[in-house]
Each structure stands twice: as structure tokens, then as C-alpha cells.
């Protein structure tokens, strides 16, 4: 039997409400922390569980009414653990049949509770490894099909906590947290893992230019490497704003321009809130489409007051609504990356890169406003959506493995702008979040306000990586679609504002709090990155080996 620290004894509880354990006199209530991983040794099963609450209790009301005098250490040490004691609430998550044969010793979701007075132990490294596996993506190369990636370490131990990346990319995922809690840092970690493990191809809509190239870390103030630097030509960096990119001494792999002919009513509808459009105005744009087809926006923007009135009269549109529509859509025409007519070549290039398994990061440069972001992301994603739909249909027809589309993950920031209850029903992102899993496309949504996202979408999110959130509604939103989530709420509000996150969902066997891995030299190395002079040294060494002096 291993020597684990016994912290308490199960005294009551239920599967739905969670268990209550009385703490041992030797276990200080102050060292119990919400979110700690504990193991309950039942008679036949081990239960892997989380502490969800810590409480003080007393056998007798009298003790509480007449506590021992302040400085009486002796009385305190006697009462602690006998008359007064701590209890912890424990949420069992997984169980393991101890008696079953080795082959089917799988971890299963809990379906029962341990018997009375089962001992509760603090989990040790072996328990973590059993539940969260070993890192097979970074670290030592291992033979094995599964792609486990270390996202960090538990709060009180030096063991890796790993996610199953293949499961991760199978469904849409979310990274949530208040502003400044390290969402983009967590996203960079996950993207690195996915790129390194080839679990999926990534398309990142990089609103604040954080993923492709060097950015300053909010925490340390140091500059950290972007994915383009870490993974070299496997990652392509496109930009909407070549000037801004060049100002940062970076050469983009391509420049994206959007033509007015590529903008559809759907895109405008998505911007309804941003542009403060009425729904009448949006509907009138269909009248324009009826007449001018794909040139509708171009024609609208070119109309003067007179022609606009004429058009309204002829088509039966509301003249004021048409005028408002034109006034507001003028803003789109003025965006620097919007041209009158653009063929699909750049977008096709991006799509081809993705098809060939190269990851694409699209920087927005100075257009880091939601308007440009939503517009561009929607246009590009719609194209990819069509493509993947076709590819999947073909694959279903031929059933050849080589026709299987590559798993694609699209990263979007400020996701509540795309996926709020109104937009989620109209935009391509809503569709992807709801059903594109079948078509090998999933989303990685990064957001600071998960409560703004449509609940239907939220409930479909597979894995959630959540940094600190305070707002009650946001916390509620994160636990949408998580059974027994209510019990875990306390964990989220108790996270440190930096580098700590709660990971729950499809890619981890049970919810876990982690200290996120550092995004530093060691990480770059684990991801296979080598500095230039190091590469040179290696090349030199190889040359020596081949040709001698």
C-alpha cells in the first residue's frame, strides 16, 4: 500500500449532492483547498474526486457559543478534530474498480458513492498519472497512438496534467477568463500542442496580432515567440494590414483583401449590432441582391441620393431604411482592406494551405475592431465551410481514408460577437459550433464573457479551459452542459488571476485545476524549436560526421 496522506473519512453524502468527509485531527483545514484532487478508497472501488467546499463544524453548539480563551493553545489543540472539526465537500468524478481484472481497469464516470467511513486520501503523483496520463506530445518521444499534451501541473504537485488532443479537436472548445487572466497565453499553448502533434490544422483569426509573431507577455513583459517562429513554415502568417506587419519587422506570407463582391447579406446581418442596423435595413438589402446579385454592395455604395430614392420606389423598400443602410455600410467600404472587386484567389490560397496541412494565422494589424474582425472571419469561414461540406460528402461517398478531410480547428476571439443568441442562428460560426463536428471542422472560441454566447452553442462545447471568472452569469455559462457543474462553481472563483485555469470537459477525464505550463525557452524546445546558432551547430556537427574534418 502506498503512503498517501489520509485527510479524512467519508461520513455522508449522495451521488447528486456530493460527499461530506470529516477531516482527520492531523489534517489542517487550512491546507484543504477547493479544487484539490483527492482519492477515496472504497471497499471495492477507488473514487477520484475533487474538493468543492471546506467547512467548519462542531459536535456541540455549546463549544461555538463559549469558545476557549484566545491564547489557550492547549484547549484549541484538544478541541481541534474532536469537538470542533473541519469537513470537506467532495465531488466524486471517476471510479476505478479495484477488484476487476487488469484489462478492464478503466476509469469510469461515478455511478455510486463509497461506503460509510471510507478513508479519503490526498492524491499522489501516481493517481495523477493514472487519470491524466503522460505527456506524449512534448517531452520524450513515445510510441503510441494517443496524443496527450501537458497543459500544466496541478496546483500542489509536480506532475503533468495532460489533455487528449485528438479528443480535444474533435469538438468545439472554449477558452474563457476575465481580461488579463492569460486567455491568449492558454490558447497559444493549446495551438502549439495541436500543431506539434498534428492533431488538426489550425486557422487562427488573430485580432490582436498575438499568435503569429513575437508579442510582449503581459505577465513578465518579455517578448515571447509566436507560432510562426516556433514552427517555421508549417505555419503561414497572413495579414490584412501589411503595413503594420512590416512595421513590426515581419514579412507576411500573404496579404488578404476583401472585395465588396464577396460580402453577402449574411455578413451584414452579423454586423447588425456593430453597425447599429435595424432589421428592416438588413431585410432591404435582399432587395438589392435581387436586382444586382453579387454586385449589390458595390452598387449600393455607388448610389447617390437620387438613385437610392428611385431604387426604393421601384423595389418597394423603405427609403429611410435604405438611406440608413447605405450610410452605415459606407463604413465597410472605407475599411483599408476592402476593395471594389477581388477574385477569390487569396482566400483560395488560404484554403489550399489548410488542405495541405499548413496552419494559417490571419493578423488584423490595425483593424483590430470587431467590425473588421467579424466581417473577414465570416467571409473566410463561409468558404471553408462550403469546402469542408463538399469534401466530407465526397469522403462519405468514397469512404477512402485519403479522402478523409483533415480535422480543422478555427480559432476566434471575442466569440460572443459571433455566437450571441441572435448571431449564432445566422452566422456560419453558429452552424459550425452546432453541427460541423460531423464535417471535421471545430471552433476554439476565446472569450471573456461566456454568458454572451448562445446556450445552445455553449452546451455543445467539448472542452473548456477556464481562467478566473467572477461574474455569476459567466460562471453559470461555463458550466452549461456540465453535469453536476453547480458544485464546481466555487472552484472557478477561487482561481488565481494568473496562469491558473480549470480544465473540464471532453479532453480530460475529470475537471482539474492547473498551473498552466510556462511559455518559455523550455517550452520552445519541447515544441522542437531551435535557435539559429543551435541549428548551425547541429548542421556543423552533422557535416563533421558525414565528411570529417
Amino acid at each position, binding site marked *: 500500500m502506498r503512503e498517501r496522506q489520509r485527510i479524512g473519512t467519508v461520513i455522508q453524502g449522495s451521488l447528486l449532492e456530493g460527499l461530506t468527509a470529516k477531516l482527520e*485531527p492531523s489534517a489542517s483545514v487550512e491546507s484543504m483547498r477547493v479544487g484539490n484532487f483527492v482519492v477515496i478508497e472504497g471497499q471495492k472501488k477507488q473514487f477520484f474526486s475533487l474538493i468543492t467546499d471546506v467547512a467548519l463544524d462542531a*459536535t*456541540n453548539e*455549546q*463549544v461555538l457559543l*463559549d469558545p*476557549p480563551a484566545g491564547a*489557550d493553545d*492547549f*484547549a484549541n*489543540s*484538544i*478541541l481541534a*478534530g*474532536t*469537538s470542533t472539526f473541519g469537513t470537506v465537500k467532495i465531488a466524486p468524478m471517476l471510479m476505478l474498480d479495484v477488484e476487476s481484472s487488469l484489462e478492464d481497469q478503466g476509469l469510469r464516470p461515478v455511478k455510486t458513492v463509497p461506503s460509510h467511513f471510507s478513508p479519503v486520501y490526498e492524491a499522489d503523483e501516481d493517481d495523477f498519472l493514472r487519470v491524466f496520463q503522460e505527456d506524449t506530445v512534448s517531452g520524450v518521444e513515445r510510441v503510441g497512438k494517443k496524443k496527450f499534451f501537458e497543459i500544466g501541473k496541478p496546483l500542489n504537485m509536480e506532475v503533468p496534467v495532460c489533455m487528449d488532443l485528438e479528443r480535444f479537436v474533435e469538438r468545439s472548445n472554449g477558452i474563457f477568463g476575465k481580461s488579463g487572466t492569460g486567455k491568449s497565453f492558454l490558447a497559444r499553448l493549446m495551438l502549439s500542442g495541436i500543431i506539434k502533434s498534428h492533431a488538426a490544422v489550425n486557422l487562427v483569426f488573430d485580432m490582436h496580432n498575438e499568435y503569429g509573431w513575437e508579442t510582449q507577455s503581459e505577465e513578465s513583459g518579455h517578448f515571447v515567440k509566436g507560432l510562426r517562429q516556433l514552427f517555421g513554415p508549417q505555419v503561414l502568417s497572413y495579414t490584412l494590414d501589411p503595413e503594420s506587419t512590416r512595421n513590426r519587422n515581419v514579412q507576411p506570407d500573404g496579404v488578404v483583401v476583401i472585395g465588396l463582391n464577396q460580402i453577402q447579406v449574411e455578413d451584414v446581418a452579423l454586423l447588425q449590432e456593430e453597425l447599429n442596423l435595424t432589421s428592416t435595413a438588413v431585410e432591404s438589402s435582399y432587395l438589392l441582391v435581387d436586382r444586382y446579385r453579387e454586385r449589390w454592395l458595390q452598387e449600393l455604395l455607388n448610389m447617390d441620393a437620387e438613385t437610392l430614392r428611385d431604387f426604393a420606389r421601384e423595389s418597394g423598400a423603405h427609403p429611410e431604411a435604405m438611406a440608413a443602410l447605405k450610410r452605415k455600410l459606407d463604413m465597410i467600404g472605407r475599411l483599408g482592406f476592402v476593395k471594389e472587386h477581388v477574385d477569390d484567389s487569396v482566400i483560395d490560397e488560404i484554403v489550399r494551405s489548410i488542405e495541405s496541412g499548413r496552419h494559417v494565422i490571419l493578423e488584423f494589424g490595425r483593424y483590430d475592431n470587431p467590425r473588421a474582425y467579424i466581417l473577414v472571419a465570416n467571409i473566410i469561414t463561409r468558404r471553408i465551410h462550403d469546402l469542408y461540406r463538399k469534401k466530407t460528402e465526397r469522403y462519405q461517398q468514397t469512404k477512402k481514408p485519403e479522402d478523409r478531410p483533415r480535422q480543422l480547428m478555427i480559432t476566434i476571439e471575442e466569440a460572443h460577437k459571433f455566437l450571441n443568441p441572435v448571431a449564432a442562428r445566422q452566422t456560419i460560426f453558429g452552424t459550425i459550433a452546432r453541427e460541423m463536428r460531423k464535417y471535421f471542422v471545430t471552433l476554439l472560441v476565446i472569450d471573456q464573457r461566456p454568458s454572451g454566447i448562445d446556450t445552445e452553442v455553449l452546451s455543445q462545447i467539448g472542452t473548456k479551459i477556464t481562467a478566473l471568472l467572477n461574474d455569476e452569469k459567466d460562471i453559470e455559462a461555463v458550466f452549461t452542459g456540465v453535469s453536476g457543474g453547480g458544485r464546481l462553481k466555487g472552484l472557478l472563483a477561487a482561481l488565481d488571476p494568473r496562469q491558473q485555469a480549470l480544465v473540464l470537459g471532453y479532453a480530460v477525464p475529470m475537471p482539474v485545476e492547473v498551473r498552466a505550463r510556462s511559455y518559455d525557452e523550455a517550452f520552445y524546445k519541447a515544441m522542437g524549436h531551435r535557435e539559429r546558432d543551435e541549428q548551425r551547430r547541429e548542421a556543423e556537427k552533422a557535416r563533421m560526421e558525414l565528411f570529417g574534418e
Partner: protein
Amino acid sequence: MTHDLSPVGRVLRSSTTEFVVGCQDLARVPTFGSFVKVKAHDGIWVYGAAYNVLIDDDPFVRQIIGNPHIPREVALDQKENRQTPIEVKVLVLGYARDGLVYQYLPPQPPATLSDVYPCTASEVTAFTDQLSYLRTILFTPQIPADELLAANLREAYLRRGGDREFLVEAGREAARLLKDEYDRLKAILSRIRPSLFRSSTPEPARRRGVT
């Protein structure tokens, strides 16, 4: 079994739960709460704690009590060479056989006139390694249970060489037993605080400070 100490008296009366020791010399009477032992049948040593000392009068004392000037030798005689014995009641706490301690009542009480010995430090330590005897003291009716327990624990603490850990453990056992009687518990705890022993712990430095 050998004894490091000479007997304090003999058994005057005995029952399963308690026995009375008749002592001759007031100076050697077991103190309140201290451990004594007496041999019963079958190699059993019955252990108990002294809890009530009765110094009974005799006809001579009755006669002389009103005398304004009692001669010194008479008073001394009453202390050292009494006509009637000093009676010490002992609460039976358990017994030992073949070096093993059992903290429940012995199968038979000790016979009258058996020698009663004070317990040595090692015997006290061995006996108090278990604490279920606390229950016997706390829940025996019609004895000053709280005072007896406190005195007994103080005694054990000192005989164990000032073992604070022991006091805490014993206090916890008492707290478990008195979970519904917090006032009693508090009274007991206030009587066994280690700080009470500060002046009497055998620390040379402290001793020197006392004049």
C-alpha cells in the same frame, strides 16, 4: 513480579468496581488520583486510582478532641501510629496480566489483606498508553469524577516525564467522551493545562529561581 516500592497498605474491603485500602501512615497514603495496584488471583494485578481518603475518628480522638491542650506526642501518634486505619477508596480502572494491560473490570476483586502498592513510573506509562480507562472515571456515579480525572492525568503527565503529547491525546479522548457536556470538558481542561505545571516541572533552571 518484583516491586520497586514497598506497600502503602492492605485491602480492607473490595468489590469489582472499587476497593478500600487501609493505611497506617498518613505520610504514605496514596495521593488523590494516583495509581495503585494490588495482586488478585491468577496473576492478575488490579489497577486503580485513589479517589477518597477517609481519616476516621476513634473513641480516643472523640475523648480528647475537646481538650484545649493536646500534647504534641498524641497528635503525632494520630499521624504515625493510628488505632483505626486511614481508609483510601480506590476506583478500579483495569488490570494487567502477563505484561498486558486491559482497561476494563477484572474478573475478580482483590482479596482482603492483599498488599497494595503504588505504581512505578514505567507501570503508569504502560497503563496510560491506552486511554479507554478515562471513560470509567468520567461515568462512574457518585465520585468527584472530573476532579479525579484531572488529578489522575496530572499525575500521569508528571510520571511520564512531562509528556505534553500525552496530555493533548488524553484531552482529546475526554473531548470525545464529553461531546455533549462541554462545560465538564472545559472544567477538566482548565485543570490539566500544561502551564499549571510550569513551577513544578523538574527543570533545574526554574528550581534555582525559586527561593
